[in-house]
């Protein structure tokens, strides 16, 4: 069996490219490490010196304000020097190749690349290229690649579930919405299964569920629902996905209004879940399309804590990679 390309020869995380294939032990170690970082945010000086003198390059080939900002805050709270590059608006538009860009930044003594790219597999390509050219001391964090993965979002979602629900092995979790375009959903499902969640329900219209979604289930813990009311019955966690308007090519949906009617999370639909269910959303939210404001701002919502936890989880990932 070939080694998981994210792990070094000691089996420790060297890059974070996908949650697929990561063991429950590694995931738990990330969550355990994130907990003390959450405390750092409550201090007078919200900074620890772990990555002092290290250079973290945020390489965003695809625009994202929120994810880039949370990585930037996480790196700065670790005392790293952070360089933000919005490459969609610079070299790439002048015709430079991805790997040429990487080579140039590596020559500037980068220690870590946080990569977002519209093409699935771009972070892996960079990691392979660096390894092949003897520069595998540079760590790669995938901040979202195409439709493939968004591992830090998946991790912060799991951290949030653990925070509120403690034990994964007794939960029923629903993932609702546009799974077809969602790298977040893929990372979530891999992690939920690795952590031993006995029932993961995916809920969405046929046109927005990838054909392979049932195969992702592996041990049969994945159930598919097209009727949201049916799917939400008795769940502990509702993970909403954003309707990706910008990725929507053609006639996958009749209209946003109709989508809201069938797949928007309203108080009335949420009432079918367990009374202590939590509602999550990776942001940015489309209010009135996939989620009703009364739910987004309601008592079950943990959407803003997700954002706060996201910084601690990214600090944990960056410091673990840098130390391995």
């Amino acid at each position, binding site marked *: 069996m070939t080694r998981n390309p994210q792990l070094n020869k000691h089996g*420790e995380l060297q890059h974070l490219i996908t949650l697929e294939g990561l063991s429950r032990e590694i995931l738990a*170690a990330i969550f*355990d*490490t994130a*907990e*003390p970082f*959450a*405390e*750092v945010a409550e*201090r*007078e*000086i919200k*900074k*620890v*010196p*772990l990555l002092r003198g290290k250079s973290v390059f945020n390489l965003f080939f695809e625009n994202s304000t929120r994810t880039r900002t949370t990585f930037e805050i996480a790196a700065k709270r670790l005392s790293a020097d952070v360089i933000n590059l919005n490459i969609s608006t610079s070299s790439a538009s002048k015709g430079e190749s991805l790997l040429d860009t990487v080579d140039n930044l590596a020559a500037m003594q980068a220690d870590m690349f946080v990569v977002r790219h519209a093409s699935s597999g771009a972070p892996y390509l960079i990691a392979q290229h660096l390894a092949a050219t003897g520069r595998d001391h540079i760590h790669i964090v995938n901040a979202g690649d195409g439709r493939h993965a968004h591992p830090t979002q998946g991790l912060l979602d799991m951290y949030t579930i653990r925070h509120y629900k403690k034990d994964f092995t007794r939960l029923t979790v629903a993932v609702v919405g546009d799974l077809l375009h969602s790298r977040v959903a893929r990372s979530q499902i891999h992690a939920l299964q690795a952590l031993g969640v006995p029932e993961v329900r995916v809920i969405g219209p046929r046109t927005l569920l990838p054909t392979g979604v049932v195969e992702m289930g592996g041990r049969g813990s994945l159930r598919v629902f097209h009727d949201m009311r049916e799917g939400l019955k008795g769940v502990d966690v509702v993970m909403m996905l954003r309707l990706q308007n910008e990725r929507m090519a053609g006639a996958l949906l009749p209209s946003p209004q109709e989508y809201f009617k069938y797949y928007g999370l309203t108080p009335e639909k949420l009432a079918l879940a367990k009374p202590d269910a939590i509602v999550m959303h990776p942001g940015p939210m489309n209010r009135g399309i996939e989620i009703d404001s009364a739910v987004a701002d309601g008592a079950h919502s943990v959407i803003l804590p997700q954002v706060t936890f996201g910084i601690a989880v990214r600090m944990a990932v960056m*410091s*673990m990679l*840098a*130390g*391995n």
Partner: protein
Amino acid sequence: MPMPTHLPDAAELCTHLAAAMRPEITPQTALIGIHTGGVWIAEWLHRELGIQQPLGSIDVAFYRDDFNQRGLHKGTKASNIPFDVEGAHIVIVDDVLYTGRTIRAALNELFDYGRPARIDLAVLVDRGGRELPIAATWCPQALALPASQTLVLERDDAARLSLRVTEK
């Protein structure tokens, strides 16, 4: 320093340490234990000395100077400092004083919470081998140990403390 023929009794050392500290304790004095052994001792001292300020604890993993060599320490705990560090009299409590690097890290961490008026250091055992100019304010026992040995404090299910030497 004397070479140990047998290890001193940890509970007795705690009693001596408390007696030495007692005259300098004021209503403003606060204790902070360093994970893990230091927290156990600090819990005991906090009761024994009737400290009025809530008990604090720190894990210095984020401030260690060997991160580049050894990576992040596994099982790092959250620090918890439930009082205002600004202007406080703080006693850092640890089990064994050795190179002084843990105390250096603890001092750096504390100053990220505020500017204390005064910091003292209370330890059970000083085993020498200092690599930094750091000394304990109170220490009931000096003990010379070869560098190949590690001195650790343990706590059993009945919360009894004991010292143990292990070979590295």
